[in-house]
């Protein structure tokens, strides 16, 4: 739908420049990172780049500490995402029904992990770990991540379920399908892409998580923790840049896919 531009709707050249400049400002840092992964300079962040090379990629792939951290991150993300998919779906299925006692309370509860700053969640988890005299490590990291992953999956799935007309379930049962069959043939296909999107978002966010993880990790290192340490005691700077590019790709791609999965809207018939 193309609207005719009347004189009051024309942006001044200044306004257009400001908008595009702002957008460019938001994107340059990412481009800078990618650029620096190829630099030959290994001691400073000098610009312009003295030279361009792929050498640091090789070095990065050879370092065992990077691989260990990567494995840890992938393991945590996979486990947290799987638990979140199950627990988040159960919650969404319950919450998409009509009112019941305690519904507002649960909604509030599910907003907290996002509403409270990460630092509060982090120190809270640590307090609990210490009080329970547990050893912080892989399992405590997973526990922390699962919590906000549940919220992410829940938000995605419940939004989709709320858009499902209630009489689909009635129609299915009317035609002879019981609850399990209705779920399998009608509800699950409807929420499938939202579930997938939620899962991918949860995976990406878990992989990238640093704020809460620093509190719950103990001596274990996820890739973001490795990265964080490198910022203060760098071994080989350009290798850090390479890892940055890798982290960026691993987290960016699922989020992009999740976005495309949840965009097209279905129409009820």
């Amino acid at each position, binding site marked *: 739908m193309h609207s005719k531009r009347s004189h009051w709707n024309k942006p001044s050249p200044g306004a257009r420049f400001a908008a595009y400049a702002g957008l460019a400002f938001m994107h340059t840092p990412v481009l800078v990172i990618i650029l620096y992964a190829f630099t030959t300079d290994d001691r400073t962040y000098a610009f312009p780049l003295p030279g361009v090379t792929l050498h640091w990629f090789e070095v990065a792939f050879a370092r065992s500490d990077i691989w260990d951290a990567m494995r840890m991150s992938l393991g945590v993300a996979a486990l947290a995402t799987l638990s979140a998919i199950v627990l988040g779906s159960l919650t969404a299925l319950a919450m998409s029904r009509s009112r019941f006692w305690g519904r507002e309370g649960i909604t509030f509860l599910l907003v907290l992990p996002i509403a409270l700053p990460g630092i509060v969640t982090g120190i809270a988890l640590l307090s609990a770990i210490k009080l329970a005299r547990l050893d912080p490590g892989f399992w405590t990291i997973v526990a922390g991540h699962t919590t906000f992953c549940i919220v992410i999956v829940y938000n995605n799935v419940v939004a989709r379920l709320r858009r499902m007309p209630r009489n689909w379930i*009635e129609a299915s049962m009317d035609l002879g399908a019981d609850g399990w069959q209705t779920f399998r043939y009608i509800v699950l296909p409807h929420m499938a892409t939202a579930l997938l999107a939620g899962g991918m978002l949860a995976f990406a966010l878990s992989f990238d998580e640093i704020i809460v993880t620093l509190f719950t990790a103990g001596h274990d290192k996820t890739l973001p923790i490795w990265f964080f340490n490198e910022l203060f005691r760098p071994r080989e700077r350009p290798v850090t840049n390479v890892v940055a590019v890798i982290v960026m790709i691993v987290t960016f791609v699922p989020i992009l896919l999740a976005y495309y999965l949840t965009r097209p809207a279905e129409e009820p018939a």
Partner: protein
Amino acid sequence: MSSAIQFRDVSRIYGAVRAVDAVSLEIAGGEFFAMLGPSGSGKTTCLRLIAGFESPDSGTVLLDGRDVTASPPYERDVNTVFQDYALFPHMSVLENVSYGLRVRGVPRPEQRRLALEMLELVKLSDLGERRPSQLSGGQRQRVSLARALINQPRVLLLDEPLGALDLKLREEMQVELRNLQRRLGITFVFVTHDQGEALSMADRVAVFNHGRIEQLDTPRALYARPATAFVARFVGGANVVEGALAHRLSGRSQAFAVRAENVQVLEAASVPPADAMRCSGSVLDVQYHGATSRWLVKLESGEMFAASAEANSVATFGAGAPVTLAWSRSDAVPLASEPVAQ
């Protein structure tokens, strides 16, 4: 022969609202039954109680003599055509139609064969591979019909199925549904707020108001002998005469109804036949309906009266003209003060 559907004192209450208030009825097998009433009268809730989407708070629902009050929808031999069709968008038309067979474990080739037969019955043979979103409203309605009928239910429920169609399509579908029901011989229960539809299609009609059935009768009986003021007004828009005016005209204080087409509009000074009831007033508005004209007259005593006549009959009275209204005593139908359900 036990009735196909039976309600015994069924009630459904939402908080303070009695959506269905101790309703009892019997619907015979093979009958085309209509549930008529304004929105909120309880007719749709009754339909949902038959289907099993709602459970009564008291009373029993019986299908073919069997108590199904506690049975879920998938255990009742009843199928529903929904108001907005409720077709599954992620399945093709063929898959939608064969859904009922699929969940019963009927083998695939058999599903396909029967579904194609069904589509032929509703005249949609070539549209099997389409998605519901690619169909028109009328086509979607036929698909939902096919989807319901493929399961060979004993009872077919239709929830205001013609509401979304334009006039011409609606009239076509009315004829088709009636023919379909006669061919299949199964019970159709039809919910509508359109009294013309109910009268033209149904064998018997239940008129609902505030959760109760005010009258359950054949269309002719409903029209000629409405039992209550509500039925008289809702079905055919009759004039209801009550109170002081009723006493003056008939000698008794019981309310009665007069159909507009039975009321003659005469000149103010004319003298109607001896045994006729008459009253005076002035014309408020005249509506031209093509074959008939309809006058809205304000009586001297203040009430509104409607009279209609064929277009080529006598005088034309314009707005403001003083007139005398007259009708024969036999056309005055006495009304009960309480709803009478049978």
